[in-house]
């Protein structure tokens, strides 16, 4: 799997158009050309250079950062350096130049790399988890309140929250970014200045960026006594930020944890950070020199041809094009449930696709250029009459599950209403699904969970785009309800 590095030299903006068939296709596969996984990525991210570059949706502030740095340094090198080189030493521009290149390199690296996005669960996994949870809760009908799992890490009890959008239990220290609509490992914060989330994979680049930027600004302004007052604040804010992150690194905390006070002793006498090794030097080494994990989302891999194709929509909601597979003949309970589920989805999909004039429908933006494939024909025997909502299966491992309110989740993609059951035979349809192709099935909005974030540094969840998508979700949910 490709490492997904940002290769600036090979940059070309690729059109998102159909590709010619690759030699990997066999005669049995359909003739639609293979597309790469980044083209159907469910999060709210922008991709460039054929998936090598990954950024958040809002990149305006990033360009501002770039301009500020380039202009300031440009002015310094043009006007001050010749003077300084003569009067003092030519080492100054050289050092300044090296520092400038380092700043730029780390900035681009931070902005363009995958922060550690966790791919969404495949339908099989999601179904398996649902089954375990439903067995533990014994619920039927409406979706139960948000779920958590408790885990003991180094003697400290940590709650793992279930992410409704990504359909996974988030690993410890992971968090869901509402702006990018992704779960990110070791989530620090979403930084608009770099136009990306800061997480496990790019935290060290981010830290190096702000550290080197501090040195660069101090370096530049050390020689400009006249403008010190004006630039004092910007210098100090960057230096202050570097200092803050140095503290975070040495105590092995994320910005998220620090702001929430997760490991603060104020929460309890026995509260401590289970991830810290206790030693400042070790913590720094781990954060800055530890092995760099690879990207989990395989942006540039090819989508397997028999997986359902889904078009990513501009605000990140993916619409589930109906699967193309036919059902097998055996009508055992699981098969029936699955068949019915797909009939419902298939029935609603063409409905939604055809009414393109409705404001409810999200059509792909030209930049995506993908069309929603209408593969809605399923060959089925009629669906079974009974749709049992609970499936008694022997619980495999049932961790202690308790229900809590979701305070830092984004339940914009509610649960699909026809979430009946997890099944055994759906593998036929989902055999090669990769995590990116899992739909966030729009459905009823999850009742009772507060929308918006209370504790994180992320900006407010309510922006116009999300309002529209909420509306769309609820309409879709109603359409589905009516077709039941």
């Amino acid at each position: 799997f490709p490492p997904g590095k940002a290769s600036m030299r090979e940059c070309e903006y690729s059109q998102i158009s159909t590709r010619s068939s690759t030699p990997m296709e066999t005669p049995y596969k359909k003739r639609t050309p293979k597309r790469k996984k980044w083209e159907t990525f469910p999060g709210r991210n922008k991709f460039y250079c054929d998936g090598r570059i990954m950024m958040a949706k809002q990149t305006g502030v990033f360009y501002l950062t770039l301009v500020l740095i380039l202009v300031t340094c440009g002015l310094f090198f043009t006007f001050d350096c010749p003077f300084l080189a003569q009067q003092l030493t030519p080492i100054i521009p050289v050092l300044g130049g090296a520092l400038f290149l380092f700043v730029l390199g780390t900035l681009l690296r931070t902005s363009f790399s995958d922060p550690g996005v966790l791919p969404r669960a495949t339908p099989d996994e999601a179904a398996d988890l649902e089954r375990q949870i439903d067995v533990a809760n014994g619920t039927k009908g409406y979706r139960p309140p948000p779920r958590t799992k408790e885990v003991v890490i180094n003697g400290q009890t940590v709650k793992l929250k279930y992410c409704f959008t990504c359909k996974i239990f988030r690993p410890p220290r992971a968090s869901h970014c509402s702006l990018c609509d992704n779960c990110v490992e070791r989530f620090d914060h979403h930084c608009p200045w770099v136009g990306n989330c800061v997480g496990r994979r790019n935290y060290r680049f981010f830290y190096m960026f702000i550290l080197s930027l501090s040195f660069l600004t101090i370096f530049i302004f050390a020689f400009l006594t006249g403008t010190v007052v004006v630039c004092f604040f910007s210098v100090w804010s960057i230096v202050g930020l570097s200092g803050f992150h140095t503290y975070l690194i040495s105590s092995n905390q994320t910005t998220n944890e620090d702001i929430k006070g997760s490991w603060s002793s104020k929460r309890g006498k026995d509260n401590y950070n289970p991830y810290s090794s206790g030693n400042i030097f070790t913590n720094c080494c781990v954060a800055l020199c530890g092995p760099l994990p690879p990207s989990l989302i395989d942006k540039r891999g090819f989508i397997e041809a028999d997986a359902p194709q889904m078009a990513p929509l501009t605000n990140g909601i993916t619409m589930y094009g109906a699967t193309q597979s036919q059902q097998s003949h055996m009508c055992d309970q699981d098969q029936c449930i699955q068949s019915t589920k797909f009939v419902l989805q298939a029935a609603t999909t063409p409905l939604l696709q055809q009414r393109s004039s409705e404001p409810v429908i999200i059509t792909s933006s030209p930049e995506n250029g993908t069309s929603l494939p209408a593969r809605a024909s399923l060959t089925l025997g009629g669906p079974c009459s009974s749709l049992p909502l609970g499936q008694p299966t022997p619980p495999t491992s049932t961790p202690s599950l308790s229900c809590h309110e979701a305070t830092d989740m984004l339940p914009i993609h509610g649960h699909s209403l026809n979430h009946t059951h997890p099944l055994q035979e759906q593998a036929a349809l989902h055999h090669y699904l990769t995590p990116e192709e899992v739909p966030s099935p729009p459905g009823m909005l999850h009742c009772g969970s507060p929308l918006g974030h209370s504790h994180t540094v992320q900006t407010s969840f309510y922006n116009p785009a999300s309002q529209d998508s909420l509306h769309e979700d609820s309409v879709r949910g109603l359409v589905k309800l009516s077709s039941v």
Partner: protein
Amino acid sequence: MAETHSLQDMRQQAAVAAKVFIQRDYSNGTMCQFQTKFPSELETKIDKQQFEETIRTLNNLYAEAEKLGSQSFIEGCLACLTAYTVFLCMETHYEKVLKKIAKYIQEQNDKIYAPRGLLLTDPIERGLRVIEITIYEDRSFSR
């Protein structure tokens, strides 16, 4: 548009009986480790010892990938000095171990799991969340 002859390999469609997911074990922190608990669906298919051995080896390999050893430390420092451009030409330590893991899984599948009608999916294809074990039905393949 009905893709009636789309890839449904008769074999895949008819033969998959179930999928078992081995979840992550977070009791040691955020390190990539999988639970060694033997799932009940596999009781009739494979030896418990064998299964645990596979999972334990995988856990050790992942621990090796994430270990802060001298090699990764040097790699980290070198990368920092070159403003991380060195990663454009060099493979990271983690990636090297992931290749090892892929090979191990392939080998296990060929020797142990496939003859029993099972298939291990490399966790990296599932975002390192689960080890997916597909159970195939015991049935002759028809075309």
